[in-house]
């Protein structure tokens, strides 16, 4: 009996039998006492690894010892250490924070808000994941939707799904988005449509990837390549886009959303691969972690495994594969980081969703012995008529895998079953000479997931194949189209190459009239009249009116930091050649090198990063605020010159905040270089306007205020074109109502003025009637209204049911009771 018990016990205590590839091992690091659940891990320096915890601490692990660096933070869901700034960046729930120890006593003492320009209500699931960093040092993070409405408020897109709840809700600005914020006060939303974007990672090529969890509008777990301006599937977050309104979103159907959504790069099939995927990390260890260069790893919180993935560009978009790498971690991985020795640190937490590993939390380290090659599927590539599967070790012979394919339904219902799942015959096979590459021929279709499953087998070196199933997501099929010889450069963090015609055009908004957006010329402005310009070719018969002419048009004086105003007009042109870039093309070259595009972008489509208001070849304007050709338009620019050190190295890039016709089109944007050129050290340079082929462009009323302090002027400048009421975001301090609890107040007080009128009060309760009337018979039974006393009192006719009138009476009688001072409203004076 005892023996039997022991066996039972040992089986129970090892919930998952660890499956670790040959040559790898998994070490567990003892956590500090009191650290409850890990949410992030990063390398601070060669000796120190840091973790952050759900309970709000940062711990540092140096040579086997733990040190508490910071505490009392709010649910930091990810941590990054900036070695240059000697500071941590932390995604606290309410803000992205820079944490510093300024007096070098080993404890954090300064907590700087990098950004809080996204909404955060008290919705519990409004997690904030990140940050990850691109090679320019810029920070990226993602924002979870709320699981529920908060105080009855929020946009819940059900698109016909019956019932209540079960759909994640957009409760505040930029929930469901990924954003970039690289310095204090800067916030730049990048892409929308995420549900629970727990995983965020930056590839070595500065491309951003997100993993999301299956659920409503997310048919399965998936990895997405984030391209600026795109929408990735969960509709609530569309509300933050200027081209979508709540009404428009609620009127849309599944197929409307399907048309605009971007499919995942890799589906991570539920149960087999993932359930709650975490952040991807790229193997940048240069061989220290094995032979998986350019591939990346993702951990999963529920399945307690790590997976290995790879991508390839097919038909102009990424797609790729995933295969399990290791299974049986103690808890579930959310974030990972490689240290300098090539060890993979995994921050694990299983609490809440329960991980198969069984432990609430763990810090484990995966390392490679430096020599052993495990027998694994190395990668899969799509071919014209099937797949090419590469192994790490030679096979003994041709082996036929079982191949399956399926796709998913896209709707507000939680997750999707595999749709149209079918077994596909392998039509033919070819094994390479070195017996490592197996090519199989199978029927291929777009938008399908393929599972390629091998039978149990050993390699020629007699090693067992540990992970036998690999999953490939086909978004596009290979075509005979040749790849361009020279690819245009990638725009860092944007996910696009320069001048990509597929980049989404900015949302069109109708600007205010010219008169409404007119600005007064400041007293200290330098008026740029004929005398200030060096090229007479642009002069016209009318003084103060210039027409684009031969040669670029530059000021005689040189300028640096400045506030600039320019008015321009693309003349109306009936010439059929006046389309795209040829309709009124010119450009404002700040400091003679940094271009803001000028052209007609009113109903004249062109590349997004080449349209009017774009930083040419780098960033489209936030909105398209163009007026029709023939109408005067304005640019109001606040710019900060780039800073170079004595060796000519860039210290701080050029920045600008720009309004087009009174609409903000660049919010403290960063220039990646000059137009078509990298940064080259320079001092002040003339302001220049470009000569370009195309229909006529006119300029007038131009002035510049030189030597403006950019950082100091920014906040005021940003609110230049908004009326006082628009910029008054503050909730006025109003004394709170005390006769009702806060929850009731927030639901009833629709305009948040801490005054509840009888109309608001009764309006809330009459709506409640519809909610309570479950069987929709227009009456409330005692079950539907389970307040015995009130029921009896109101049910005058003893019908054992309340009609609307009786129900309303209950509350109209209650109101005077709450309105103690009888001023016909509930406010702070009622005590």
């Amino acid at each position, binding site marked *: 009996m005892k023996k039997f018990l022991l066996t039972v016990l040992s089986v129970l205590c090892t919930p998952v039998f660890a499956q670790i590839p040959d040559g790898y091992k998994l070490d567990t690091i003892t956590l500090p006492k009191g650290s409850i659940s890990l949410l992030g891990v990063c390398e601070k320096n060669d000796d120190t690894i840091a973790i952050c915890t759900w309970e709000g601490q940062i711990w540092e692990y140096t040579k086997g010892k733990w040190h508490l660096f910071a505490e009392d933070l709010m649910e930091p869901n990810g941590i990054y250490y900036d070695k240059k700034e000697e500071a941590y960046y932390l995604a606290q729930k309410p803000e992205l924070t820079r944490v510093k120890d300024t007096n070098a006593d080993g404890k954090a003492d300064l907590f700087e808000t990098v950004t809080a320009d996204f909404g955060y209500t008290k919705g519990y699931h409004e997690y904030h994941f990140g940050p990850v960093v691109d090679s320019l040092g810029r920070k990226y993070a993602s924002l979870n939707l709320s699981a529920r409405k908060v105080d009855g408020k929020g946009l819940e897109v059900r698109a016909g799904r019956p019932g209540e709840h079960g759909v994640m809700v957009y409760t505040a600005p930029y929930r469901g988005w990924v954003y970039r914020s690289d310095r204090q*006060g800067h916030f730049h939303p990048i892409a929308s449509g995420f549900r629970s974007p727990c995983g965020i990672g930056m590839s070595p090529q500065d491309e951003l990837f997100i993993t999301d969890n299956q659920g409503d509008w997310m048919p399965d777990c998936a990895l997405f390549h984030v391209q600026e301006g795109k929408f990735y599937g969960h509709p609530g977050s569309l509300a933050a886009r200027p081209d979508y309104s709540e009404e428009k979103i609620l009127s849309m159907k599944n197929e409307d959303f399907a048309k605009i959504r971007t499919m995942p790069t890799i589906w991570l099939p539920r149960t087999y691969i993932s359930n709650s995927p975490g952040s991807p990390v790229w193997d940048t260890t240069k061989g220290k972690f094995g032979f998986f260069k350019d591939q990346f790893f993702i951990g999963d919180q529920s399945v307690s495994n790590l997976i290995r993935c790879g991508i390839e560009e097919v038909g102009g978009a990424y797609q790729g594969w995933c295969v399990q790498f290791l299974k049986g971690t103690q808890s579930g991985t959310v974030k990972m980081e490689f240290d300098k020795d090539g060890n993979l640190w995994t921050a694990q937490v299983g609490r809440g969703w329960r991980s198969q590993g069984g432990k609430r939390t763990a810090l484990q380290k995966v390392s490679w012995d430096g020599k052993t090659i495990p027998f694994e599927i190395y990668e899969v590539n799509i071919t014209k008529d099937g797949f090419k599967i590469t192994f790490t070790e030679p096979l003994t012979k041709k082996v036929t895998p079982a191949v399956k394919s399926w796709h998913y339904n896209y709707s507000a219902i939680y997750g999707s079953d595999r749709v149209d799942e079918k077994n596909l015959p392998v039509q033919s096979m070819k094994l390479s000479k070195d017996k490592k590459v197996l090519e199989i021929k199978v029927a291929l279709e777009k938008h399908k997931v393929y599972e390629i499953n091998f039978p149990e087998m050993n390699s020629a070196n007699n090693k067992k194949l540990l992970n036998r199933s690999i999953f490939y997501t086909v978004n596009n099929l290979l075509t005979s189209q040749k790849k361009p010889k020279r690819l245009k450069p990638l725009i860092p963090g944007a996910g696009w190459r320069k001048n990509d015609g597929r980049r989404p055009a900015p949302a069109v908004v109708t600007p205010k009239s010219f008169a409404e957006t007119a600005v007064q010329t400041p007293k200290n402005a330098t008026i740029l009249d004929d005398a200030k310009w060096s090229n007479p070719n642009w002069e016209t018969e009318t003084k103060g009116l210039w027409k684009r002419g031969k040669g670029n048009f530059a000021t005689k004086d040189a300028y640096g930091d400045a506030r600039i105003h320019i008015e321009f007009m693309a003349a109306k042109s009936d010439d059929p050649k006046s389309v795209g870039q040829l309709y009124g093309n010119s450009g404002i070259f700040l400091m003679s090198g940094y271009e803001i595009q000028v052209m007609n972008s009113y109903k004249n489509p062109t590349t997004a990063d080449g349209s009017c208001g774009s930083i040419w070849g780098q960033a489209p304007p936030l909105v398209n605020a163009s007026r029709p050709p023939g109408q005067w338009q304005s640019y109001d620019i606040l710019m900060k010159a780039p800073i170079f050190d004595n060796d000519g190295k860039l210290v701080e890039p050029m920045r600008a905040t720009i309004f087009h016709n009174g609409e903000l089109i660049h919010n403290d944007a960063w220039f990646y270089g000059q137009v078509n050129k990298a940064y080259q050290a320079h001092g002040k340079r003339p302001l220049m306007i470009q000569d370009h082929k195309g229909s006529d462009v006119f300029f007038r009323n131009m002035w510049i205020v030189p030597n403006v302090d950019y950082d100091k002027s920014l906040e005021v400048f940003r609110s230049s074109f908004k009326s006082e009421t628009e910029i008054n975001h503050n909730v006025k301090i109003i004394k709170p109502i005390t006769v009702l609890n*806060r929850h009731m107040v927030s639901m009833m007080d629709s305009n948040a003025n801490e005054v509840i009128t009888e109309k608001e009060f009764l309006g809330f309760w009459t709506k409640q009637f519809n909610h309570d009337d479950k069987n929709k018979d227009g009456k409330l039974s005692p079950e539907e209204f389970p307040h015995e006393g009130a029921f009896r009192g109101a049910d005058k006719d003893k019908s054992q049911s309340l009609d609307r009138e009786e129900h309303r009476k209950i509350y109209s009688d209650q109101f005077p009771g709450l309105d103690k001072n009888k001023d016909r409203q509930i406010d702070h004076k009622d005590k």
Partner: protein
Amino acid sequence: MKKFLFTFISLGTLCQTLVADSIKRGEEIYKQVCHICHGLDMNGGIGPSLIDDFWKHGDSPHAVLHSISEGIPNTEMAPYKQLFKEDDLKAARDFILSKQKGLRSLALSSYPKAHFKGKKLSLDLLKTVESLEQKSIKENLIYFKNRYDAVAHLKADLYIQEDGVYGLRIRKAGRTAVYINGKEVLFQDENNKSLNKAQDFKLTKGVHKIEILHDEKMQHSLKFHATMTQEGKGHFTLMGKSLEGSEPKMVRAGAEAKVIRKYVHDISPRTLLCLLPNKVLVAYNPYSGKIEKVWKNSFVDQTPSLNARSALPSSIMGQELPSNFHGYNTKHKIKMLSYQSKGGSVLIKTAIGGKEHKVTISPLGATGFSLKGESKEAIPGFELVHEMTGSPKTNSNFKIDFN
């Protein structure tokens, strides 16, 4: 079995009369010594509360006696065996135990799940199986283990303060059977609702035996929540939730001011909880310029949030002060630039319409604080909101004392 139980209960009653004198003596000792740290109402002060559910060093009669006589190393709790005779130490213990309500002296065993498959959970079934493991639980929490392969059996003392008719309610959390003094009082099975039953029962003041059999259900959070109702008297929570072995966490004032970010009911998100060295806690929202609430003699109890993925609010303990100072209004959006603990004060930097504004919250006397505002440039439309005569209203450079 029944006979045995009767004997057991009568023995229990007998013991109670014997300890009555001891309790009286214990109360005297408590009022001489213990109350200084643990409070007259036993709610805690320097030392922890003696009537809540958390017993870090054990809640069995033996463990409590041990803590009193041997003290707790590295704390202010001294070994009192040097001061009092053993009878007096026991008297102090008896007095403390006489004030308890709810579960104490928990012991948990687990049994292979297969043994209960297809059968109704019952104490009788335990007789025919060997347990996988048994352990006592120091803290008074039901500590089911997030373990879905075993049936848990929890034994505990149930302290009742008043004779009466009681009922028991358990949140749906899997198959559960509850026995009090050996008699089944509740059974629930979500899969077979026809079996579900709960009945009211009489209990006298004193200590009773409770046993819970629980077949844990896979669920999102580790909750096992039971409330005991007393006829005509309302209810109390019988057990807390599993902290999964972590300790209760109270954040108390220290020599340096602390800024705490935690979810607290009825406080706006993004509010800074500034806990000053004089135990005054100012809930200051830097994004609205609003003082949301103020407490004195306070600390922050983060325990409820610990096993709940921080989904449950932390609570601020202490005395809330009525406020006649509400903060300030401005014309522009306020941006928080940074917060920082500086000595005993909290320094918060904001930008209002692009102009830097510093707010310093400092302790003042035993129960007050001062709020100082500073800006180099004038901030238009700045307006302080308070009902304190003689204090400034419109200048962004100000200092207001709140006592």
